[in-house]
């Protein structure tokens, strides 16, 4: 029962954060959206930042699930890299709101109350979603350091494309974000094969 109510609060909070942003949202507003008396939310969370942290944690679990699902049929490390990279890219391409949610953190805007431990856990889960790419690059012969560097560059490239896609700016170039991302992955694999990295 409590868990059902907690889920109800999170659903309402997601809608409120989407509408008002983390700064504009308030416990009162979230309570209203959840159909609770103002304040009843405090049974479940002690601040809107704690709710935000819970939402982001859930989102990152969904991301990790998506990444974990792909790859068992991959014939080699190159195919695995393509599958894992596409998994997180597609997750955020299909769910722009999840990207918004995640990027409050990535932007370095640390909501008050998201304590250091929680912040570290959330960043850790984001990194977990990228680690299979890192692992595949190592299997292709890259050192740990180079694999991390290339995974970071891959993520940066993907996030840049997602940003262009979600804001509609990609139309300015008449390009397709997914095709460009796939092309980047192919290019990355080519550079690995030719030992340019």
């Amino acid at each position, binding site marked *: 029962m*409590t868990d059902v109510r907690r889920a109800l609060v999170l659903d309402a909070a997601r809608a409120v954060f989407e509408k008002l942003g983390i700064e504009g949202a308030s*416990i009162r507003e979230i309570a209203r959206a959840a*159909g609770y008396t103002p304040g*009843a939310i*405090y*049974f479940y969370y*002690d601040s809107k*930042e704690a709710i935000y942290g819970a939402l982001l944690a859930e989102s990152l679990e969904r991301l990790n699930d998506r990444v974990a699902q792909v790859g068992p049929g991959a014939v080699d490390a190159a195919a695995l890299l393509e599958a894992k990279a596409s998994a997180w890219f597609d997750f955020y391409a299909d769910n722009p709101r999840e990207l918004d949610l995640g990027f409050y953190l990535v932007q370095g805007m640390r909501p008050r109350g998201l304590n250091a431990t929680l912040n570290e856990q959330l960043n850790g889960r984001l990194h977990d979603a990228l680690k299979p790419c890192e692992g595949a690059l190592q299997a292709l012969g890259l050192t740990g350091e180079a694999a991390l560097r290339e995974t970071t560059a891959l993520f940066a490239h993907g996030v840049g494309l997602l940003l262009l896609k979600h804001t509609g700016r990609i139309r300015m170039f008449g390009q397709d974000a997914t095709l460009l991302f796939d092309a980047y992955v192919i290019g990355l694999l080519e550079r690995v094969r030719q030992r340019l990295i």
Partner: protein
Amino acid sequence: MTMLLDADDSQLVLVDYQLRLMPAIFESQQVIANAVRLARLAAALQVPLWGTEQMSEKAGLGPNVPEIHSIIEGAGGRVLQKMHFSAVADGLADMLRPPVRKTPAGGNARSLPKHLQKPAPAEEEGRGTIVLAGCEAHVCFLQTALDLLQEEFDVWVVTDACSSRSERNRDAAFDRLAGNGAELVTTEMVAFEWLRSAGHPFFRETLALIK
């Protein structure tokens, strides 16, 4: 007149849980944790919630710790900034008297069933029961509590959410308060008396909060 706390007649006042004071306080982590529990319960049960902060020009004690500050702010309560040790000397009693609003009659879908509801006290009476916790127990807190008693409020001291730098001072404060007519309680007593029944819609949530 019941001997139990009544959520509809209560207000919660949290005295001086200030950033630069708390590290010196005996059992401060437990004390803060209980104050946060009380604040969350009050906010959830629509018990008006207030705070105080001791101001001084020389040795600033800082604002209330953020976890307490954000609940008071989120619940729409005010923090009284005071120069006197007793918050009453700086206007706390006026803040606690009406026009504090009662829970609106009629309730909503999540209110208690009709047969469990108590008749709402008359509007003009205000909420005369002050549930009080804070630091230091023998200075600002004690003086505030004694002044509230003097002002004829019913004062309920939540002992496990109060402390001083030394245990001895804290206990002396409790003795003195008990001798002057304050009721000494604990966080759990407050929680279960505010609820009254395991049939309360938020019984499980309250249990989770207290554990």
